């Protein structure tokens, strides 16, 4: 009896979670221009979506931004994790970790607002238009909010790995650099990769910060979706969303497979703690 009740509860919650997503995918195949009445099956909206250059530009921008920002965040973040691990001064160490975590704890809207004001000031100092630093601003913003997640997924690996193998490598003649790249980096790779994947998906998914920091000449997918939902929505927005959901689903499968989910949980559990 208790088991049945539990199953019923799980089923109910998951049904509520998935009904909107399934309806959305379902209506993306609607042959009529309606998001409420289903007239028949067609791929019309997908065709329309693929014939609009706007989508492709936004998709291209999103991917360029996600790739570059996640690479930069992973490199800086991994180096930072190693550096933080080496730090002797406890106070300095915890101060750095607290500052690093600010973008993660702060509401996104505040981070977005602060970065936008910062780049307005930078554009003012350089006396160029805001648009002309648009991509750089976006890139810096995305690296900044991804960094804590990279550090948070690499640092525990480094702590776990300890020093003995690197010391052994140095005793056997490696320089500290070689010991890091040839021994340590390879061993902490799972953490580095899941940090990178996390940074990538976060960048791809980000709306609020991009909305504040972005300028009209660099539109990403979430920004495109936002502008599409401002007007009367046609199912091509649904088609676009369905494609994104399916991509996320595939990424998630890979991510889970790579045992990366540990990190996500760690982020949720210890995310706001020092």
């Amino acid at each position, binding site marked *: 009896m208790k088991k049945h009740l539990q199953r019923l509860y799980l089923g109910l919650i998951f049904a509520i979670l998935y009904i909107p997503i399934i309806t959305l995918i379902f209506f993306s195949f609607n042959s009529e221009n309606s*998001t409420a009445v289903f007239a028949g099956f067609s791929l019309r909206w997908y065709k329309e979506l693929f014939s609009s250059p706007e989508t492709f530009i936004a998709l291209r921008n999103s991917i360029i931004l996600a790739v570059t920002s996640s690479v930069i965040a992973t490199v800086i973040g991994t180096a930072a994790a190693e550096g933080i691990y080496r730090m002797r001064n406890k106070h300095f160490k915890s101060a750095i970790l607290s500052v690093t975590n600010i973008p993660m*704890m702060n509401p996104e809207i505040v*981070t977005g607002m*602060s970065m936008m004001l910062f780049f307005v000031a930078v554009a003012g100092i350089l006396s160029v238009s805001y648009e002309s630093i648009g991509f750089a601003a976006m890139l810096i913003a995305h690296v900044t909010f991804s960094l804590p997640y990279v550090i948070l997924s690499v640092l525990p690996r480094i702590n776990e790995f300890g020093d003995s193998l690197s010391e052994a490598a140095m005793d056997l003649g490696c320089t*500290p650099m070689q010991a890091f790249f040839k021994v340590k980096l390879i061993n902490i790779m799972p953490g580095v990769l899941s940090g990178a994947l996390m940074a990538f998906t976060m960048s791809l998914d980000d709306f609020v910060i991009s909305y504040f920091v972005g300028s009209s000449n660099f539109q990403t997918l979430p920004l495109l979706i936002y502008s599409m939902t401002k007007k009367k929505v046609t199912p091509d927005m649904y088609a676009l969303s369905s494609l994104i959901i399916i991509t996320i689903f595939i990424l*998630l499968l890979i991510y889970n497979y790579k045992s990366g989910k540990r990190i996500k949980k760690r982020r949720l559990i210890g995310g706001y703690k020092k």
Partner: protein
Amino acid sequence: MKKLSQIKHSAAAAPHIVWAVLFILLPLFIVTYYAFTDADGAFSFENVTSLSEYLKIFGLSMELAVIATFVCLLVGYPLAYIMARANPKRQKLFIMLLMLPMWTNLLIRTYSIMAILDDGGILNTILNTSMHIVGTKGAVIFGMVYDFLPYMVLPIYTCISKIDKHMWEAAADLGCNSFKVISKVIFPLSMSGVISGVTMVLVPSISTFYISQKLGGGTFELIGDTIERQFVTGALNVGAAISLVMMLLILLSLAVMNKFTDSEDGGIIA
């Protein structure tokens, strides 16, 4: 030799430190600067004093976010509990099912709820009714709960699944019935998960503007909408002042909650 390598290795954090100072601390400093100056850059308290106008909006945002967080906890705790008690293979599946919506863009999720609940939406079409749901507080709260529920469930789930199995047995052996096992043993032990779940739901709920725009139907404004409006209309100084206050409030409450969990954990485990 060792000492030298240590210095070199700490230097690996240097790019990050420079980055954090330039792009985290400096922007926050600029927000503070904007909050205390007027449009011409002269020092003024006007933005901060004008915040009293927004007190009602602050209150409403707080009210809706607190209700949404409470509902998330009420719905999410049993879910996390059942998940943590399921067999390991099932657990993995449940986690996947929970994470897919979480990784789906918030705009998409919110929009699809609106399409269902709207006046001429799917629900009303199917039931052939004319319920007015979008535009009510209930709809906004539902949207928050729907969007942020996974953030509540995952940390609690992690916490419960880490609790030693013997705790359950020990409590039962010592005479607890199953309700008491949960209320006296499991719930206190999962407190740190509850606290991080609460913060992870509360912070985005207070500051959201998309959910209230779509599901509030433009009938009321939350503090996130106010900031967004200042941004769109270019009233950056006022926007900065509101952002600053919101940030301070949230960091303060996080600090308080952190203190609370630390002592709580220490008390029970030690």
